């Protein structure tokens, strides 16, 4: 409970205020954005003076003020959704089915619904602002028999539905492009400059995204437009004006003016939302300077050595590690506090806590890589990576982790909270994992049965054999055999055909087992022939590699922090506190280096991701593994160049010494 309080401390005092500031700025930016929208939407080159004067009078009218208030409300809700849904570790779907699971998740559904409604509100504001034929939903018209009635204004309806559609597609694309992922930048800049720098990108993204959305919307409205139209007429008791063209025809939709208005409204909507998102990202990733040590004991839980060991919330850990990396580089005074000894007792508590946490992060990653490599690349070739103890722990982990070897449950960092806030407190087995197949255990598709399905499919897929056959072939039986041992989600109602007991299989190959085996093959063959299933369950290339390094920003900072501190200790560490941990730092870096090198020899691991410009989704996570590899090498070189030949007196195994010699001779 104490740790929960601490995390509350940070969220309450820092994150919430940062989010509030970002929302406030987004609301403040609303008037200029709206003014630009009004000017562009009423654009008429033939009557420039009339155009300008109309715009000015509209800006000061009461309806504009009301629209402002509504739009401000929408921005605040968007800001809250950003705060609620953001994550510093991306949720990477490793197959189409996992992505589908994410999209259909109830939480996501809720978000989509809210976005839809907000889209309608914004579109209504747009309709009012553009005015003219868009202004109201109903208008008085004269029926054929001469009686006055209220008719449905289809232009208004089209605009409202466009808003809903754009809001919905925004929320779906947010999942696909990981738009809720907040990345940290290597180049620190002031918030204003960062915002200014990202403004052109926001404009470009919102314009192009709006274009695509409007195109899709027009196609959908052409085919399905009559449904909302008749429903509207029925519920609101409106009539359709038969003298006008219906808009769900080709002639009706090829109205350039209408398309322009749809596009500019969609751009306005996306622009305001993206701005809110960008501001949130900028504010929340701002560097926070934690005190290294405090003279008051009640503040000690806010100090860097304490904070850095926290598991939750993730953002706190990330900001603490970022602060560590920066202080080790730039702040000699704070570095000296890290190297200092405690006043009564003379223990280097600060350094011990920091180095221990960083080393445990690194060894975590190492183990994860070893486990992954063991399951993926071996067909009996893999040699033990390093010393026996680690070997043992890694195999332990793979046993514990049961049927999903990609998520060793002993590593806490793999547990990715979908939100760092409310849900993360739940923790435990319910918390979603960044697993290749199951990014969300509570998603409807992520039962163990599903995972069982994936194995046979992969095993028999003809085009998988070329790339990943050893991996699949080995993993297949493993998945099947261990499946009964671990009921992760407690869904025991599995078809008996698909669950052969491993003990039976091994000890007495009975008739039953034989029968089960045959049935299994049949099921596999049957499923493999279905194209749709193949499509859904095929693993996306390099996605598992991305998922493996999803939180590597933390490791990068840990490496930077450690290496800079060690470098500084050469001249600044008066008590020699770093000396004691230098062997373990070096050995853990070298072991990690070996594991990373081996990982990059796997197929797809070293292939560069396609650079996707023009989306607001942050693709930083796709290249984290390359950044980690480069940082790791630089970190080792930083230590070896600083210490040089002095390293020969550091105790380490012969294998590591050989490896280190390579670095000393600049041959890596």
């Amino acid at each position, binding site marked *: 409970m104490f740790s929960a309080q601490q995390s509350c401390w940070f969220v309450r005092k820092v994150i919430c205020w940062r989010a509030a500031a970002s929302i406030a700025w987004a609301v403040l930016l609303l008037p200029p954005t709206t003014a630009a929208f009004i000017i562009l939407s009423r654009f008429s080159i033939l009557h420039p003076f009339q155009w300008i004067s109309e715009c000015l009078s509209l800006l000061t009218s009461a309806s504009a003020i009301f629209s402002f208030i509504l739009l401000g409300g929408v921005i605040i809700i968007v800001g809250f959704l950003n705060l609620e849904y953001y994550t510093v570790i991306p949720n990477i779907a490793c197959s189409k089915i996992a992505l589908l699971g994410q999209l259909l998740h109830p939480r996501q559904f809720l978000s989509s619904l809210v976005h839809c409604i907000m889209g309608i509100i914004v579109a209504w504001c747009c309709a009012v602002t553009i005015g003219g034929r868009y202004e109201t939903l109903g208008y008085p018209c004269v029926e054929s028999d001469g009686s006055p009635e209220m008719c449905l204004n289809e232009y208004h309806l089209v605009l409202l539905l466009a808003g809903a559609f754009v809001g919905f597609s925004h929320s779906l694309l947010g999942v696909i492009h990981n738009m809720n992922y907040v990345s940290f930048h290597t*180049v620190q*800049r002031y918030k204003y400059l960062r915002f200014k720098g990202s403004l052109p990108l926001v404009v470009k993204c919102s314009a192009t995204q709006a274009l695509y959305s409007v195109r899709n919307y027009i196609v959908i409205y052409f085919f399905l437009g009559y449904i909302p139209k008749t429903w509207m007429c029925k519920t609101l008791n409106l009539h359709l004006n038969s003298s006008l063209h219906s808009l769900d025809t080709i002639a009706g939709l090829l109205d350039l003016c209408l398309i322009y208005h749809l596009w500019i409204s969609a751009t306005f909507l996306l622009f305001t939302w993206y701005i809110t998102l960008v501001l949130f990202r900028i504010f929340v990733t701002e560097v926070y300077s934690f005190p290294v040590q405090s003279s008051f004991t009640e503040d000690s839980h806010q100090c860097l050595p304490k904070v850095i060991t926290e598991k939750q919330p993730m953002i706190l850990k990330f900001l603490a590690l970022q602060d560590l990396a920066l202080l080790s580089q730039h702040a000699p005074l704070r570095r000296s506090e890290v190297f200092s000894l405690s006043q009564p007792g003379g223990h280097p508590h600060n350094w011990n806590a920091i180095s221990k946490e960083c080393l445990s992060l690194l060894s975590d990653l190492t183990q994860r890589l070893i486990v992954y490599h063991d399951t993926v690349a071996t067909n009996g070739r893999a040699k033990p990576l390093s010393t026996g103890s680690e070997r043992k722990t890694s195999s332990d982990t793979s046993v514990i982790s049961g049927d999903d070897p990609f998520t060793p449950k002993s590593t806490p960092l793999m547990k990715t909270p979908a939100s760092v806030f409310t849900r993360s407190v739940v923790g435990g087995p319910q918390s979603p994992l960044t697993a290749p197949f199951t990014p969300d255990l509570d998603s409807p598709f992520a039962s163990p049965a599903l995972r069982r399905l994936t194995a046979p499919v992969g095993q028999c897929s003809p085009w998988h054999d070329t790339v990943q056959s050893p991996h699949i072939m080995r993993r297949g039986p493993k998945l099947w055999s261990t499946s009964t041992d671990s009921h992760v989600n407690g869904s025991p109602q599995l078809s008996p055909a698909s669950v052969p007991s491993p003990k039976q299989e091994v000890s007495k190959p009975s008739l039953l087992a034989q029968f089960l085996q045959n049935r299994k093959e049949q099921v596999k063959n049957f499923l493999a022939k279905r194209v749709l299933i193949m499509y859904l369950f095929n693993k996306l290339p390099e996605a598992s590699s991305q998922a493996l390094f999803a939180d590597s920003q933390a490791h990068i900072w840990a490496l*930077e922090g450690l290496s800079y501190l060690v470098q500084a200790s050469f001249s600044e560490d008066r008590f020699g506190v770093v000396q004691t941990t230098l062997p373990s730092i070096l050995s853990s870096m070298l072991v990690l280096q070996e594991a990373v090198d081996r990982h990059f020899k796997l197929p797809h691991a070293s292939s560069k991701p396609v650079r996707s410009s023009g989306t607001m989704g942050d*693709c930083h996570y796709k*290249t984290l593994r390359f950044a980690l590899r*480069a940082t790791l090498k*630089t970190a080792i070189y*930083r230590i070896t160049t600083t210490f040089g030949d002095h390293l020969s007196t550091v105790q380490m195994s012969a294998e590591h010494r050989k490896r280190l010699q390579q670095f000393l001779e600049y*041959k890596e």
Partner: protein
Amino acid sequence: MCSLALFPPPLPSGHTTLCESNNELLSGASSEDHRLIQVSQNKLGINKSLKLHSRTESSSKAAFLDHSETLWMRSAAAWRDGGFTGLLNEITNSHTEDIFQILKICGCTLALLQWVSSFHGSLFPHLTLSSEDMIAEFSQVLNWPDCVVRAFAWHPHTDKFAVALLDDSIKIYNPKSATTPTLKHRLQRSVAAVQWKPLCASALAVACQNCLLVWHVDPCSLSTRPSSGCAQVLSHPGHSPVTSIAWSPSGSLLVSASPMDTAMMVWDVAAENCVPLQRVGGGGVTFLSWSPDGSHVLASTPSLLFRVWETRMWTCERWPCVKGRCQSGCWSPDGSRLLFTVQGETVIYALTFTDAPGTSKGPQAAAVVADLSETTFNTQDGDITVGGEIQSLAWDPKGERLAVLLKGDAQAADRPPVIAVFKTRTSPIFELLPCGFVQGEPGAEPRLMQFHPNFQHGALLTVCWSTGRITHVPFYFLSAGVPHFGLNGSPSLPRPQERPSDFANHPTFRFVVWTPEEAS
């Protein structure tokens, strides 16, 4: 303030500077060293062959016959080669009558565009240059277009170096290995600068005409032609040609500059993403230099302005110049002092940055520390005039020797380009003291110079000559900052009394002379 009049006179012709020992520059007549002569004689032919191979693509266009294609095909090709302006040009110049209207519209648009661009060009005259000319204009290399060695870079930690040649290939020489990898890439054209990544054995950044390449050359590999898969291509629209690059001393970031782009790019090379640092004014960025302590970056622009960026939060100070643009600059090893030169002036300025907490303000004005105005020396070969504008500056990593490459005058025979070397002293006040001129063999003009990053016995200046030759000139001295182990001067120079030509046989000089044909 130091001036050239205090310098010892230049060597008589036929003598070359060999090294500095016991506080004086030793020279030797080149006729004494037969090996060097021989090498330099058969070098000319090779240089020619190098030049023959290095035709640019535009020049090869003339060799092909024109053949008629449809207007659309030509338009597509023009769009690909020359962008929008090229397309308009192509359509306007076509002689097809059936699309007279389009012709007219395109002609008008083109005229409008040209008018706008000429207006823009009148603000920033460098924008009208072709990219080759632009690199030549802003490069640190003297006379870049016909220089055999276009760029040179020592590895920051080992004794290997990379040389970019006129034919757009890069060769890597390592005294410890027999293989000399040659790097060639489709996009590697008009190399303006190369630099090795610090704290890394393999990564070499190359500034090219259209992009930035980062080669990963495995030092243990035996391959002499690393595939182009070993190179990362970093490009950003509008950011070409790249004329200058600088790695951060911690090896994490790379900055690149282009005179066409007002933004300076900060690259996270491993992730291949960049942060443009945009500042209005200046019209581009021409030269970058990262201070050795990593705290500041000098960025000069084509106009009368340069900036000094602080790398913590990436904010900058503006430094307007009076007479011309900032041509070159270098940092003291502790990053506290910046020396720079301005085009059109013959002096070296110094700026001092203090990292006192609380005072974010840097210096208020630059101080003149050396005057390099033209001075005539009376030598036995007649009068030689030395001095004038400065092409580039180089400060050795210990902060004791400053080499200045003076442009000279290409027309006048008695005013050759020359390298003047100063001794620098920081206490009690910062001052430059004369050391001497570094001269090559007759007819060879210095084009490019760099100090070895970690030479044990003092400083080692590497000079690339117009003949395609690369020589190393060692300066033996005891560093003021390093504790003295010996009692009397120059302990590291093994046999100071021997004839200078014997230096070539000393292990330190195993790679003293390098010429292109030794490579081939």
